[in-house]
């Protein structure tokens, strides 16, 4: 590597570069006796970032307590979830309906994938396992379509129908294994489309 090509990190205070050493292949003499240009060398150095220094301070919250408190924070969010879920599922259903009717919004597939990821990533930590399962299956399906699989709208619609069902109070707390016909059916649909 050329001289001076590896400047130190921008912040000279933190993180600090405690030690440096070089590694990498050494220059070798060629058959003609001329030394080859040195191959790129790696500079390896220790960084102790402010995050690492501060996180190691005494007085932190023990893991069990931290997880309890985090769960409590999630529980506080739950009351707002109903309205949000209603809006998200309705928005997703409308997107799909428009696409099915030939009036697809530009980028509808990316938007649908984003919304389904949101549903999956919110339902799981809040403990809504059936919703998370269906949203995850829809994510897999949409990812597959984005990657080039046939855009089978029926398979998308049946996921939307399943989401409509699972958002209802009586299904919200269910686990996937409590509705095996539904979950196996969705798995079959995804498998069929992604093959």
């Amino acid at each position: 590597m050329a001289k001076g090509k590896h400047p130190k990190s921008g912040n000279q205070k933190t993180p600090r570069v405690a030690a440096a050493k070089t590694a990498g292949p050494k220059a070798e003499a060629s058959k003609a006796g001329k030394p080859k240009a040195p191959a790129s060398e790696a500079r390896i150095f220790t960084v102790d970032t402010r995050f690492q220094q501060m996180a190691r301070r005494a007085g932190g919250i023990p893991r069990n307590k931290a997880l309890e408190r985090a769960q409590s924070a999630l529980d506080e969010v739950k009351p707002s979830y109903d309205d949000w879920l209603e809006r998200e599922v309705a928005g997703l259903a409308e997107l799909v309906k428009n696409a099915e009717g030939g009036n697809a919004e530009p980028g509808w597939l990316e938007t649908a994938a984003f919304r389904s990821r949101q549903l999956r990533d919110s339902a799981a930590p809040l403990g809504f396992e059936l919703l998370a399962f269906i949203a995850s299956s829809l994510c897999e399906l949409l990812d597959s379509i984005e990657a080039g699989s046939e855009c089978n709208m029926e398979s998308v619609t049946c996921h939307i129908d399943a989401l409509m069902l699972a958002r209802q109070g009586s299904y919200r707390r269910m686990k996937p294994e409590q509705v095996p016909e539904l979950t196996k059916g969705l798995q079959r649909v995804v498998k069929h489309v992604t093959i």
Partner: protein
Amino acid sequence: MNLRDLVILVADPSSYISMLIHGMLRGFGSNKILEVRNSTGVLQTLMGQKIDIMICDMHLPPHGGLSLTRAIRSKTDNEHRTMPILMMSSDSREATIKRARDAGANMVIVKPISPSSLYDRLSWIAFNPRKFVDTETYFGPDRRFKIEGYPGGVGRRSGDKEVEIGAESGPALGQDDIDNLFSSVQTGD
């Protein structure tokens, strides 16, 4: 782990998911959490203040979290160049995880995120610091690692065993396998 007074930047396109992560971090004792929805927001925030760790979604618009990570790591006059970056991804295929590692992410956490997985990944970054490597083609945490349970081992430097990179369509990795991909070699530094 003590997160008090550390500035944490959560970069996720979803306000609802950010709110959930925000809640988890508050539970862990964090009191300085910033949120942005895109890469522009990240870069503006980094220009304006010191961030101690970034938790970034791989789908962050417009160009994704990996491009952003590469940009942060490659800019030489950037005080955040060595900032820890925890990448969130719902795609846990081996090839994707390796791309995150090669972009310079410190760790990947699989979405959906649970409090315990987030706490453990933050804790890992805090208590298992890795050396940084600076070459012509890479700047970031040392990518040398060994994988317990993977046949043949994995490595990237002369003397290390060759990587057999799986096909893009390979099976998703579990969080433990992902952690192994990021765990540094304990010997031979």
